[in-house]
């Protein structure tokens, strides 16, 4: 077998592969650290049973749906109390209830949102209206 114009084709293929795989080797070893949301706020540390309104795994995958349902319930239906599976009642308020325990927005909310490539304070735009908790650094 013989390649015509091998003198130009082979270096061309090498250059093409180099450019095509550039993102891979340029970012080698620079993987973004996995998100590490922290729940070590003073309020949570004092809790005997560290339990959110839903089990952790459900909150992780479904907190956006829960917040959406809470909004509909509070603003449109006028019900402001959420009854959890264990009968415990919560005030359905991002700004007053969620943040009462999770007072560390930058260490909790932002951890995953930034990792997922969401632009900080733009998507999701919760905190353009709701006032974020003051954090002590």
């Amino acid at each position, binding site marked *: 077998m013989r390649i015509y114009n091998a003198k130009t084709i082979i270096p061309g293929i090498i250059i093409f592969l180099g450019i095509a795989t550039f993102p891979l080797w340029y970012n080698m070893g620079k993987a973004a650290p996995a998100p590490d949301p922290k729940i070590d706020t003073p309020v949570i540390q004092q809790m005997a049973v560290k339990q959110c309104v839903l089990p952790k795994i459900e909150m992780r995958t479904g907190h956006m749906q829960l917040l959406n349902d809470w909004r509909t319930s509070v603003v449109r*239906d006028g019900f402001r*109390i959420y009854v959890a599976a264990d009968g415990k009642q919560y005030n359905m308020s991002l700004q007053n209830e969620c943040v009462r325990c999770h007072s560390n927005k930058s260490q909790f909310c932002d951890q995953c949102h930034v990792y997922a490539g969401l632009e900080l304070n733009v998507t999701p735009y919760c905190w353009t209206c709701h006032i974020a908790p003051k954090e002590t650094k």
Partner: protein
Amino acid sequence: METNRRSFLKIGGLCTLGLATLPIHELLAKTDLPRVASNPEAFHGKQWAMVVDMRKCWEKGKAGCKDCIDACHKVHNVPEMGNVKEEIKWLWTDNYENVFPGQGNPYNIENLRGKPFLALCNHCANPPCVRVCPTQATFKRADGITMMDMHRCIGCRFCMAACPFGARSFNFREPRPYIPELNMAYPTRERGVVEKCEFCSERLEVGLMPACVEACKVGGLAFGDLADPKSNVRKLLASNYTIRRKPELGTEPNVYYIVS
């Protein structure tokens, strides 16, 4: 896959049977706990309304008193924009001929000159703002409050054009830097949404009267349920001559004024 009439009818029958058992399934799947509840201390009404007694405001109140406005704007994080064009107002004062246009004559306008009239969203029983809102961001609640859902507002300002009372304000710019003192328990708004008085729905829910009613030292503001004949507003309406803003438009305002 081949099927004959017999097996098709069998499957059809099974499907019908399954549908017939749906109510039983729904009954069994129901949990004991309600997912949401109302605060036991909440006030409930069928048509909230306000009676503004301007006599008390003028006679007993100090000239230039703005207690009600300050209280409202403080709890609701209403910004002070500093110019009239971008002004955000939930509760404000204006003169007689602007609040009650068409109801004045040269003499009563002269008599009432310089006297402030309190104005706010009328929470109309037939609200034009709700009818024009393309996203149902503004809507009528079961208790008669014309409510805003800021999450849905797209800032088209149809409601502002529709409201005959000028009760709605648009956030032309980011309002947060213009709020003198943040109330951490209540959200602010963002650029591009319309806001207005919400009859303190968030306070009624926890058993508190609206902030303006609570703040008025001379008791000039009365708030209650129009549907309840024993309510304070019904008593005031029964014993006084009251007027409403622009009644000829048929929006059925729920803010009544005692003028003399």
